[in-house]
């Protein structure tokens, strides 16, 4: 990614001589250093006439590599983070007591939660409900990525006004507008559009983080599977690579910017005709929690849910 040439300006030790030495060993970028055995390289360095200077260059690269990974944390720091999240009420209610209790009091920051279920099992309804609830009760921003034109403003408005207890009409109208302005919706129709939007969101969140105001709390993608299914199959690894990249990007957003990510997935016919979640085995490793929604046939309007993975 970063060619050695571009580093010359900031680090004078990586001069043309050093670059020439590296090029001789097939190293042109910092990433090339990663797949090279540095010990072997240092052995070569000692055979060179200007070994001291070359060694310094390698040390400089090692220092750069150090900054490429996240810092090591010990358990105490991790625990502090987790407990702070809890104290700061960074656990949002999804708006439904049953599902909340299932998820240990709701949506936790840093989590990727997948809602899976056959069509008309209430996935979108749960998403809309969660958006309304987070926007209203936590006053947090919600980003709703809509892939199937299923986002309904009316439904959200319904949810928002439903559980408002304020009696004065004017006051409620103001809060209503405020709540609704917390929710932003964006329509995406393919995986590349999704990756694009996610990268943009990452930039935006980075700026917000630096500025100190942190607004977005919940990211919803309804439905993620409809973007990914078309690119899977066909032999090559590219489809899966895109899927896993998107998955890791979601996890990164969730962890680094303290979001909660809610995605939906549909069901396909599996072994022996039993329905199973789409997107296959590789995707299973991505979400932290999988919630299975299904329609209860006994009650005309009842839905049931169960935990597939926790």
């Amino acid at each position, binding site marked *: 990614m970063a060619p050695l040439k571009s580093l010359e300006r900031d680090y004078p030790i990586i001069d043309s001589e050093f670059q020439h030495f590296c090029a001789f060993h097939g190293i042109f*970028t910092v990433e090339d250093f990663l*797949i090279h055995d540095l010990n072997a390289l240092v052995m070569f360095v000692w055979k060179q006439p200007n070994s001291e200077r070359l060694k310094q260059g390698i040390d400089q690269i090692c220092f750069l590599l150090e900054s490429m990974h*996240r810092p*090591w*944390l010990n358990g105490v720091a991790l625990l502090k983070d987790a407990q702070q999240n809890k104290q700061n009420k960074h656990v949002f209610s999804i708006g439904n007591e049953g599902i909340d209790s299932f998820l240990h009091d709701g949506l936790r920051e840093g989590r990727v939660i997948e809602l899976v279920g056959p069509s008309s099992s209430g996935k979108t309804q749960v998403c809309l409900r969660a958006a309304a609830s987070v926007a209203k009760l936590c006053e947090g921003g919600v980003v709703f990525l809509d892939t199937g034109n299923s986002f309904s403003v009316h439904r959200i408005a319904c949810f928002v006004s439903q559980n408002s207890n304020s009696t004065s009409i004017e006051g409620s109208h103001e809060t209503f507008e405020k709540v609704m302005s917390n929710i932003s919706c964006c329509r995406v129709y393919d995986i590349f559009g999704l990756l694009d939007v996610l990268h943009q969101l990452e930039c935006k969140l980075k700026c917000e983080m630096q500025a100190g105001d942190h607004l977005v709390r919940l990211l919803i993608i309804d439905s993620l599977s409809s973007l990914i299914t078309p690119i899977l199959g066909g032999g090559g690894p590219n489809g899966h690579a895109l899927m896993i990249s998107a998955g890791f990007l979601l996890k990164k957003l969730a*962890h680094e910017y303290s979001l909660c990510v809610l995605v939906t997935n549909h069901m396909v016919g599996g*072994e022996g005709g039993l329905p199973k979640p789409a997107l296959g085995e590789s995707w299973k*490793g991505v979400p932290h929690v999988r919630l299975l929604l299904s329609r209860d046939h006994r009650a005309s309007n009842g839905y049931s849910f169960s935990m597939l993975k926790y």
Partner: protein
Amino acid sequence: MAVREWIKTDETAEDLLSRVLRERPPLLLPPLHRLPLRAGNVVEVVGPSPCAKTQILIQVAVNSILPKEWKGVYYGGLEHSVMFIDLDCRFDILRLLQLLKHRIANAYGSTCLGSSKEVKQDQRDGKVWRFGAKEESDTGYEEDLIEICLRRFLYIRCYDSYEFLATLKTLHDKLQWSREELGTSVHFLMIDSIGAYYWVDRASTSLPLGAKDRKTLSLQSVTEAVVNEIRNILLVHPMLVLATKATIFGDKCATNDIKRKFSKWSSQDTLDQSMVGSGSENLSHREYMPSVWQSFVTYRIFVRPSFKQLSAANYDVTCEQVYLAEWLLPSLGITDKFAVTDAGIFMVT
């Protein structure tokens, strides 16, 4: 006479054995207890997700970071540091804490009351918290111990192969630092899970820059670099490497498809499919990591849920999930059953 003195035995084999057994308690808890694992080994835990792979790692970690004895209470830990490289980004510290508290409460309770039997029974139900000893124990005592333990747990999260490699490249310095700062050496290196970036690396291409003999970024070269780095580190810092690997071609019905699809794979990846079956429960596990990783692994255990499929229709949340563990390398031919509760992993007979 001098010669006789010189060849005098220091200790007999029997003495040696009893000393070694005393000094080195069995390193790992079930289900990893069948083999004498030691530093320098690379153990791979394979299984379809979810099958308690991370849980096994956490269990080992907790056992490792606990002290052997602290303020007169025997905890039976190893007092070693653990390094946890999280490639899956799904580790939850609260889960580790929960397990740690269970272990502490257990040890504390059994010492105070002297009736380990009762505690064990309680432990089975995961209800140690209601045990009398817990309420009496001052919380400060417990918090100190927890902090001591958690200090020994080192964690890093990676989002792609570059970060993973950069982590490994700088691991040597980190290990030295932890040895000096913490005073304990790291005995476990855990990787969860090694196949996380498989698809991304397969499809990765590097920009064409200059020479022909440049190593290209691919699954093969990345895995080679990973193995090489770990091997180099193990030479200087002997550790037990525990890596999990999710099976990503698990489906039986899809096997035919996959065979056709991947017959075009490069010859570098030797694909071998091992059928793991006991009776009717046939489940195929397909090796997908390059051979350089496969040959690096010294022990391999296969873990799977005992139910045939966690299908939507018959999955019951309340029932206790039973898992099966089987050693593939070396193949012992024994299948252990274990269950996961709040208090950890327990063998089921």
